[in-house]
C-alpha cells in the first residue's frame, strides 16, 4: 500500500519538476519535456522485451508456468510502453522536424520492436491450451531473439544506405544541465518501478486465475 502511494508520489512529483523546475535544452525548446517520457518509455520497451525473452527461455528449460506468466505479462505491458514510445517519438519528430515519420534509425528500431511484440502476442492469442501456448510462444520468442540485434542495429543502417536522408537528426548526446539530468534519472527510475509493479500485478492475476481454474476443474 505504502509502496504504491510512494511510487505515484515520486512520479507525480518529478513530473511537476520536469515542467516547473528543470530548464529547457536550447536546441529542443519546449519539446524538451518529451525526453523525460519518451526515452524512459523506449528504455522500458527494451527492458520488457528482454525480460519476456529471458523468461521464455527459462520456461523452456524449467517448464514452470510462472516463467510463462512473466513472459506474457512483460510482453503485454511492454507493448503499451512501446506504443507510448513510438507515439511520443512521432509527435516529437513532428514538432522538431515537421514530419511524423522518417524511418530514421531509432524510429525504425522501435517500430520493429512493436512488430515483434505484436507477433508474439498474436501467437499467444491463437492457442487455447496453457502449456502449449507457453511452449510455442516461448519458441517464437527465442527465434525472435536472434532477429532482434539484426533488426535494431543492422537493418536501420541498411535502410539509411538505401535512402540517405537529407534531414539531419541530432539525437545524439545532449549536454544535460544537472537539473535536467536529475529529473531524467528520477523519472527513469520511477517508470521502471512502475513497470515492475504492473508486472507483479499481472503475474499475480495469472497465478490466481490458474489456481481458481484448477480448483473447479477436478481434483487429482
Amino acid at each position, binding site marked *: 500500500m505504502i509502496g504504491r502511494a510512494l511510487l505515484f508520489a515520486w512520479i507525480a512529483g518529478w513530473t511537476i519538476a520536469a515542467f516547473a523546475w528543470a530548464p529547457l535544452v536550447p536546441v529542443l525548446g519546449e519539446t524538451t519535456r518529451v525526453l523525460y517520457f519518451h526515452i524512459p518509455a523506449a528504455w522500458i520497451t527494451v527492458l520488457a522485451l528482454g525480460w519476456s525473452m529471458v523468461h521464455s527461455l527459462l520456461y523452456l528449460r524449467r517448464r514452470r508456468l510462472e516463467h510463462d506468466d512473466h513472459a506474457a505479462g512483460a510482453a503485454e505491458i511492454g507493448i503499451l510502453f512501446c506504443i507510448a514510445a513510438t507515439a511520443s517519438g512521432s509527435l516529437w519528430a513532428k514538432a522538431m522536424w515537421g514530419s511524423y515519420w522518417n524511418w530514421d534509425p531509432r524510429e525504425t528500431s522501435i517500430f520493429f520492436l512493436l512488430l515483434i511484440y505484436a507477433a508474439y502476442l498474436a501467437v499467444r492469442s491463437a492457442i487455447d491450451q496453457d502449456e502449449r501456448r507457453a511452449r510455442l510462444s516461448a519458441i517464437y520468442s527465442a527465434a525472435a531473439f536472434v532477429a532482434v540485434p539484426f533488426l535494431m542495429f543492422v537493418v536501420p543502417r541498411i535502410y539509411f544506405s538505401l535512402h540517405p536522408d537529407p534531414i539531419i537528426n541530432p539525437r545524439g548526446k545532449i549536454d544535460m544541465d544537472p537539473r535536467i539530468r536529475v529529473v531524467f534519472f528520477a523519472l527513469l527510475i520511477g517508470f521502471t518501478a512502475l513497470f515492475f509493479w504492473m508486472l507483479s500485478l499481472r503475474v499475480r492475476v495469472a497465478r490466481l486465475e490458474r489456481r481458481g481454474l484448477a480448483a473447479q*476443474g*477436478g*481434483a487429482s
Partner: protein
Amino acid sequence: MSATAAMVSPESVVLEAREVLHRYGPRVGLERVSFRAAAPGVVAIRGANGSGKSTLLRILAGLLRPTEGETALAVDGAETKRSDRSRWIGYAAPDLAFYSELTAAENLRFAAESRGMERPDEAVRQALERVHLESRGDDRVTALSSGMVQRLRLAFALLHRPPVLLMDEPGSFLDEEGRGAWVGLVQAQRRERLIVIATNEEREWTLADESVELRGRGLGRPA
C-alpha cells in the same frame, strides 16, 4: 537397426509408469497411475471411456509429455532416453494416420528408411505379409477400407520389430476375419514381446496376463 532390436532378449525389457497424471487445461484427463510391466507378455489397460487410456498410451510412446510423473523404458537394465523411445516401441492407435497420397508400401518404406533400417524393402514386405496386406501394398491409402488401414497400422507397429507393442483399441474397424488374424498375431508375438493393449472390449482384455485399471471418468465428468 532391426538387427539390434531382435538381439534384445525379451526378459530384459521393462516398461514403467511412475505417478503419471495428465491434465488438459484445468481438467484431469488421466488420473494418477503407476505400473510396471516386463516383457514378454500381454498387459491390458482398461477403463471407462474418457478415463485416459489413449492418453496413457501416447505418454508411454513418448508422444506426449505428462503434466506430472514420468515413464521409463529400460532395455538390458539401462534406461533409454525419452527421445529414443520410439525406436523400441511399436505404436498403433486410431489417431495414427498415413499419407493418403502415398501407397501403403510407400508409407511403410518411408518409416523404414527414416528409422535407418538396413533392408527396408524386405522389412516392408514382411510387415505387409504378416497382416495379410501384401496384395494391397501398391494401393494408395485413400483406396483402403478402414479395416485395411487398421491392419496397416499394425504393420507399421511391427515394421521395425520392436520389443514393445502399444495398441490402442486394436480391434476397431476389423471384421471377424481381421480380428481372428489379429488374435493370432498377438498369440504369436506374446512370447517374444511386451504387448500393451488399451481396450474396452472384453474379448480383447481376456487375452491379457495382467490388467491395469484406470480410475476416474476423466473429461467425461463435470466438476
